[in-house]
């Protein structure tokens, strides 16, 4: 009889308001195994992990860890039980040494009231050698370490606290290919020592390379479980995409002249040698995983910050876009990816948030003309059906979808010739999502050239005439019309 699995998850469900984030998901992880977890954004991966490590509580279902009921009340309890999570952002103290970061916490070795540095450093070297098979200078400051070295320090930290199940949540986003290989070698070595891993990644190749089995989630449901011999990128991407597999970009093609042309844009560490054209009245979608350079590329077109090299032409004429105000003068608008930190002015009212980029045009010789501001904001409110009590109401009182509409209207009121959007539908409800997609399509129909980047593929496909797929900073595919299917895009972005 085979040994009992280390972790068993039975019929786990959880909803947040009206959204059902997890619907009766069951899975098990064998001791010393590596289970891959795949799925789009919002498929339920994070929710599952958060329940596992005690951040959220499930509505139904139960978990068994090492044969005992596992119901952690908080992350500390999960960690005591032997489960550690590795997030994309690494919680470390940059101005402390590697050894201090490994031992930070209540169980730091000490001599009386003083930390016992010598013991810590010796133990740190030993841990690195036995666990990772690596040599380390324990006195090095974490600040001077690379992202990969920081991860290893964190890995040693959790293993020194007897973690038996380590959850790796997108561990490779910040790593270079050789660093990924090194991390994988270390993970395999640790598996040999009996450590079990749950591995989450958007990169299908990495999942297939490392995992023994892969579980695919979609819309909160477990839609597939593949064992090693069944691994195939096409099959995985089909499972991830699901019924919307055949969803394609809009088939209507734009025929206008070229509005925006980018030639060989490069920005070290973000994207390389990217060229494309956008026609008048066309929506170009930019797809790619987080860290693929998708969002940096769109920002570069707005000069925030500009690309390091390359050329941009508008209506055939070369232009210099070094700062946002220069871009605005050229008729470009930009909706940023995070409206809270990059878009909205929390302390100001709706009308000023709407009119912020066009204040000069709505003033009389520098004097505010409240009447004109109110009228301009009112027109936008009616056109975009922004639900706000009044244009004088504070922006904070609006829902996410309405705040997003305010941000889009900031550019609409300037009648832009080119509109750039980063994550136009992030954090808005389904109804508002639909309205925003319609709105952008309408803008394009009026002749505006649109470049939209989004991690939400379905919206992106609904929106775009053509899709540019970025992978590790390079354009790997350009798909238009019916050729731009969801599974093709996923395949190009993830392999």
């Amino acid at each position, binding site marked *: 009889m085979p040994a009992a699995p280390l972790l068993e998850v039975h019929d786990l469900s959880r909803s947040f308001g009206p959204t059902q984030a997890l619907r009766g998901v069951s899975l098990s992880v064998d001791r010393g195994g590596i289970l891959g977890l795949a799925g789009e954004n919002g498929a339920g991966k994070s929710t599952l992990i958060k329940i596992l490590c005690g951040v959220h509580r499930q509505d139904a279902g139960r978990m068994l860890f090492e044969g005992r009921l596992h119901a952690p009340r908080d992350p500390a309890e999960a960690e005591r039980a032997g489960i550690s999570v590795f997030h994309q952002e690494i919680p470390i103290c940059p101005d402390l040494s590697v050894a201090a970061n490994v031992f930070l916490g209540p169980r730091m070795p000490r001599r009386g009231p003083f930390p016992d540095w010598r013991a810590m450093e010796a133990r740190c070297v030993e841990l690195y050698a036995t666990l990772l098979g690596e040599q380390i200078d324990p006195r090095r400051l974490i600040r001077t370490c690379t992202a990969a070295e920081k991860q290893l320090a964190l890995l040693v930290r959790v293993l020194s606290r007897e973690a038996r199940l380590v959850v790796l949540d997108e561990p490779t986003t910040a790593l270079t290919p050789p660093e990924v290989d090194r991390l994988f070698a270390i993970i395999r070595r640790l598996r040999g020592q009996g450590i079990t891993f749950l591995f989450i990644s958007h990169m299908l190749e990495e999942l297939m390379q490392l995992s023994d089995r892969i579980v695919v989630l979609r819309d909160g449901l477990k839609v597939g479980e593949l064992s090693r011999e069944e691994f195939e990128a096409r099959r995985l991407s089909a499972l991830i995409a699901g019924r919307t597999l055949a969803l394609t970009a809009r088939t209507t093609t734009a025929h206008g002249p070229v509005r925006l042309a980018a030639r060989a844009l490069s920005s070290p560490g973000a994207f390389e040698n990217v060229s494309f054209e956008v026609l008048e009245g066309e929506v170009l979608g930019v797809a790619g995983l987080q860290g693929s350079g998708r969002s940096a590329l769109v920002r570069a077109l707005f000069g925030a910050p500009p690309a390091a090299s390359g050329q941009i032409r508008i209506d055939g004429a070369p232009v210099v876009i070094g700062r946002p105000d220069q871009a605005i003068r050229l008729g470009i608008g930009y909706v*940023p990816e995070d409206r809270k930190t*990059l878009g*909205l*002015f*929390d302390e100001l009212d709706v009308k000023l948030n709407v009119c*912020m*980029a066009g*204040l000069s045009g709505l003033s009389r010789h520098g004097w505010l003309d409240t009447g004109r501001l109110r009228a301009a904001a009112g027109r936008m409110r009616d056109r975009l059906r922004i639900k706000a009590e009044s244009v004088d109401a504070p922006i904070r009182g609006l829902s996410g979808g309405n705040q997003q509409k305010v941000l889009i209207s*900031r550019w609409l009121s300037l009648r832009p010739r080119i509109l750039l959007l980063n994550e136009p539908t992030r954090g808005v409800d389904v109804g508002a999502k639909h309205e925003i997609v319609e709105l952008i399509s309408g803008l394009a129909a009026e002749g505006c050239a649109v470049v939209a980047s989004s991690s939400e593929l379905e919206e992106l496909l609904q929106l775009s005439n053509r899709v540019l797929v970025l992978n590790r900073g390079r354009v790997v595919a350009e798909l238009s019309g019916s050729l731009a299917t969801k599974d093709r895009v996923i395949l190009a972005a993830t392999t």
Partner: protein
Amino acid sequence: MEVALPAGRRFAALRRLFGLRDVGVLVAAVLIAAFFAAITPSFLTAYNLFNILRQTAELGIIAMAMTVVIVAGEFDLSVGAIYAVTGVVAGVLAGRHEGNIWLAALAGMAAAVLLGLVNAVLIATTRINSFIATLSTMMVYRGIAMVLSQGQPISFPLSFFMDLFGRAEIGGLLPVPVLWFAGWGVLSYLFLHRTTLGVRFFATGGNREAADLAGIRTARVKTIAFLYTALASGLAALISLSFLKTVTPTQGTGLELEAIAAAVIGGTAMSGGVGSIVGTFLGTFIMAEVRTGLVLLGTDAYVQDAFVGLVIALAVIVNVRLSMRRR
């Protein structure tokens, strides 16, 4: 969630002048005045009120400009030192070398604007935190005032200039510094609350990244704010030298902190993006009425600062509570 008050249009004009926060400060100012009036009858006389305003005019002028800088997300600790340099430059030219007072005053103002520009350029090019940057320029500028004056006070001969900026009393009752205070107040109000540049101060201090992405040249906006505090310091120095007929290189020591205190009592948020000229005016007034009231009560002069300190703490606690409730 805060909802617009369903008050009628009648109050619209009043509400535009007084934000919701300002009403709270106004109530506090009135309550404090009522308290002192109840125990010392001489408190609530026209003479005393104008006296309070005259005494606090210089601080008030600087505090209003400080409000602009704080709203734009920065601090200017060098205002007191610029105030001293302006006075000393005018004093050396007109007092010691018996030059024309008008030209001397102009030179003083030019010096103030130049020092403000140094602050702005330093902060814009090096991106040092303005608190540290102006702490250092505060000491440098104070040193300049000491060197130029040789550490000695300088007196001026009486002239029409002195009357115009500090000594005249209109109708034998209204001291002219109060008019300058009022004029600067109206100017600052229009500047911060009625111009597009004013909105850009709020945007820059409220969310600098978002302001950059809305095409606002935030470095330029901050430069203008630093020039405005320098200008205010210069004007305050002219009022002071006119009233006292003398300047000292140590004048205005600690003025920067009093100006920040007045702004904070008036509801200005230290994190930027929130503040009002009306609030700061009231904040200045509250500090002055507490001081004067305590004098009239016959309190020990040393106790007064402690009381003002308590007022600041109280105002900040109320402000934090208010902004917490709105989140």
